């Protein structure tokens, strides 16, 4: 072993947004109104043109994303962040923090944020995940057309988890299911939730990572290999492997998913490594890649901007592929 072998942070592999909300420094940034990227839609387009960010965009709007007061102009194709989080409302600053998320999306040209809300303490109780999902539904109403919801459940709640998934999709209009690390995705306790998602025609965004050192705080984290195994068992399921760039060895993850054609890879995460997107496109194909940030906003957008791929391929990653996934919802 190289190095002094100091303590490895327990926070590792909980990428930013999947971690319990961190304390936000209350110090506000100095804002210069002259140079502040403007927030109204027309000026936002000007900002994007100036930065050159996200010039090629996805083709079709996400199902369930209704135009609202702060919705982007209809003429501009949508960029969809497949992995975001609203802030738990036990946190005093949740409202401002959610607004800051939408503001960040505005500044970076992200039109739609697909959000879940996790309980601060896990494993989540049924009451806990139901409360989170109610607040996510409220977040969709507060930011119409900008926030779409994933139903977060702990599969260990059994029938209550399955019922909650159905209720969230059918009553709240959620677009998918978010699973974390309470169980390996190949544990049979998870299967009824997967089967409900298949019935409803919605994707499952699954927390994932593969590291080469023990993660004592995440003994049941799934990785690309387990997700591929789940996909072999349920080829009808639409599975999203979360945060390629926040889940440890991304080369391992990409290779593990190669022969699992129904598993999509979310490119989000805080790790800014070069060449991730290109390797994923080469090994998996661009049709299986979904743009995401997982709250690491400039990393998420910047890596797609920097990827050496044709603009048409970037458009698929930025929103086209996710829009197709969302269009598959039953009913």
């Amino acid at each position, binding site marked *: 072993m190289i190095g002094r072998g*100091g303590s490895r942070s327990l926070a590792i592999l909980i990428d930013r947004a999947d971690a319990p909300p961190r304390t936000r*420094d209350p*110090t506000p940034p100095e804002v210069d109104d002259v*140079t502040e*990227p403007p927030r109204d839609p027309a000026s936002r387009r000007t900002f994007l043109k100036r930065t050159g960010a996200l010039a090629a965009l996805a083709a079709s709007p996400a199902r369930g994303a209704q135009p609202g007061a702060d919705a982007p102009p209809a003429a501009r194709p949508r960029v969809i962040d497949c992995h975001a989080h609203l802030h738990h409302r036990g946190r005093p600053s949740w409202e401002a923090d959610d607004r800051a998320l939408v503001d960040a999306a505005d500044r970076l040209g992200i039109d739609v944020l697909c959000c879940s809300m996790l309980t601060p303490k896990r494993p989540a109780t049924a009451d806990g995940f139901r409360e989170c999902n109610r607040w996510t539904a409220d977040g969709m109403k507060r930011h119409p057309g900008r926030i779409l919801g994933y139903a977060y459940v702990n599969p260990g709640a059994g029938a209550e988890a399955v019922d909650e998934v159905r209720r969230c999709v059918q009553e709240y209009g959620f677009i998918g299911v978010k699973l974390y690390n309470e169980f390996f995705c190949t544990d049979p306790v998870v299967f009824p939730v997967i089967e409900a998602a298949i019935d409803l025609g919605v994707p499952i965004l699954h927390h994932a990572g593969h*590291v080469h050192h023990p993660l004592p705080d995440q003994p049941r984290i799934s990785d690309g290999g387990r997700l591929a195994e789940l996909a072999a068992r349920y080829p009808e399921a639409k599975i999203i492997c979360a945060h390629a760039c926040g889940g440890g060895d991304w080369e391992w993850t990409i290779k593990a998913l190669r022969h699992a054609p129904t598993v999509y890879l979310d490119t989000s995460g805080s790790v800014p490594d070069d060449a991730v997107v290109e390797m994923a496109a080469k090994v998996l194909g661009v049709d299986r890649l979904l743009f995401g940030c997982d709250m690491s906003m400039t990393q998420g957008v*910047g890596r797609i901007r*920097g990827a050496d791929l044709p603009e048409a391929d970037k458009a698929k990653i930025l929103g086209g592929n996710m829009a197709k996934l969302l269009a598959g919802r039953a009913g």
Partner: protein
Amino acid sequence: MILDVNAYLGPFAFRPLRHNTADGLLGLMDAKGIGRAAVSSASAITYRNAQAGNEELAAEVRGRADRLIPFAVINPAYAGWRDDLQACREMGFRGLRLYPGWHRYALSDPACLELVDAATAMRLPISIPMRVEDVRNQSWLVNVPEVPLAEVAALVAARPDARFLLLNGAGFANGPLGRKDSGLPPNYLIEISRMDSVLTDEIGRLVASLGADRLAFGTGMPFHYPDISLLKLEALRVDEADRRRIAGANAESWLGPA
């Protein structure tokens, strides 16, 4: 002009790098609008004898000193480091990079302090990457923790005449390195690549608490997509004068013009 204080050349032990020759990196810089870059050897991070990496780098950047500013990786725990430092100075190196975690020494070790003093006497800035890779990505062969910010703060306080570039770090805004009133000397620049300028906005908070004259642009290329740091700089809510300071003026005042 954009000056990147956090760039590298050569192979890395644990994954392939693109754009890691002088020609390759200059091509990438041209494509991204980056004028100059402070570069060190990526190989020297894991070579036992880091000086071999410095010699490779010197050969690679020869004739490109207008854009590629060579920084030497010196390991004060390894035999002959004083000779290596002198040799690097004579080869035209303009700064140092230290890897205390990878090279197994502490910033407070007497040999490290002697190296800092020697570099200061040569007027060489000293850059310290807080990490090389995210700890989650590390190979099974290595387990190198990040450089603790508390140790960095102790070093900048102990050597007020030295000049430090703090690379690949985050979490400054919550500690003494991120505050003007902490009593630390203003002898360090914080490089922005690992912090954000939206949402958590640590870069914006550092501008507010420490001042735009204490930040420096960096990318970590070719380990990282340079576009990420460029986007952070673009999205940062500061006036254009402060943006220019961060983009290159602050670093240029330390490293000199092209």
